[in-house]
């Protein structure tokens, strides 16, 4: 079979049968690409999982692009990614034409009143699972708490502050602490650096905790290097 068609169809099959997204897909991709087709090795699969975790976007898309590129270059990447997306695109497009009319049916509307509670539980559960895997150190905990407090304030008071701003602020603070932790850099400048000041009152604690965390960040950076 044509390799591009093979990539497209293999990923279309994965796209069609993975519910829930994310990590559920990794098992299927591993089965298809490592065991069945032997397109990539198990080690490569582990690598791509790590890369997928530290880059934005759906993990399944990251994997499809990577495997496609490894096999057939750019065309392969396009074929695999398109295959991954196509099944769910068709299904959701069909649903989108009917959903609002569907919701007018009384018992379906009742069902969705229950379902929206389930969605909150699932999101909370996903966050708790990530929290468990987070390094139990002072800096990540402080940043986590500030992000949590700021986001909660944004939600409760319907503030028009993008969560992207919160993430960039956290990234900038972490980078600033890392730089400040290096020899020769003053620790006193960090609390003012890289903070647009719009991230809400939650960040005041961060500023106060900043200098104290300098050595911790440094130690962490040292471990990695």
């Amino acid at each position, binding site marked *: 079979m044509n390799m591009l068609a093979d990539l497209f169809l293999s990923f279309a099959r994965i796209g069609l049968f993975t519910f829930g997204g994310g990590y559920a897909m990794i098992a299927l991709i591993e089965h298809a690409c490592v065991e069945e087709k032997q397109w990539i090795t198990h080690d490569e699969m582990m690598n791509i999982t790590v890369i997928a975790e530290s880059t*934005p976007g759906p993990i399944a*898309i990251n994997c499809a692009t990577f495997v496609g590129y490894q096999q057939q270059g750019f065309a392969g990447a396009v074929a695999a990614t398109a295959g991954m997306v196509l099944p769910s695109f068709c299904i959701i497009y069909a649903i989108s034409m009917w959903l609002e009319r569907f919701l007018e049916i009384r018992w379906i509307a009742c069902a969705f009143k*229950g379902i929206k509670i389930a969605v909150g539980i699932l*999101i909370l559960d996903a966050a708790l699972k990530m929290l468990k895997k987070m390094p139990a150190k002072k800096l990540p905990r402080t940043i*986590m708490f500030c992000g949590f407090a700021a*986001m909660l304030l944004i939600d409760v008071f319907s503030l028009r502050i993008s969560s992207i701003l*919160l993430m960039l602020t956290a*990234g900038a603070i972490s980078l600033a602490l890392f730089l400040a932790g290096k020899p020769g850099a003053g620790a006193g400048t960090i609390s003012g650096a890289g903070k647009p000041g719009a991230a809400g009152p939650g960040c005041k604690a961060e500023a106060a905790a900043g200098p104290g965390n300098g050595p911790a960040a440094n130690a962490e950076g040292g471990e990695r290097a």
Partner: protein
Amino acid sequence: MILLELFIGFLKVGCFAFGGAYGAIPLIRDVVLSAGWLDDELLTYMIAVSESTPGPIMVNLATYVGSSQAGLAGSLIATLAVVLPSFIIILLVTAMLKTALKNPYVQAMLRGIKPCIIGIILATGLYMMLKNGIVMREGALQLRPLLLSLALGAVYFGSRRYKKGGISPIMLICLSALAGIAAYGV
């Protein structure tokens, strides 16, 4: 122009959605609600539909929002926009042999961004649960949403004590649909 707005909106989602599907939900809420494309209620329903249909959740949501705003063209544009950043990033990372991600400065930024995202997801989940569970009408606390929230939470988290991993998300959504019908429809 709506197509351009959809493209830019979902490009933002694609660029900043670290941490998988649930990492993207606060962002999608952000973009979709501030643009007024869907109301909170319909978006929450759609998250459940995306969870119960195959495919990555954020791709499903992009397809749906695009279609609801601008038909087939809208859904194509929004889906393309949400996929494009990770597609390009993986090509770059593969080409640069992963050195970029090992760069200590990039690592330092990621160490800040990841916990912040966890906090954001936690806040979003908590806020949605409180908003759906504690409903006041004419000064009185509504019992049914509160009891439904407590019961579903107890079943979902409690099931882990008896079965490894507990019940699946899709199972929880099915149960919650039945519970909704039982509580409101009968």
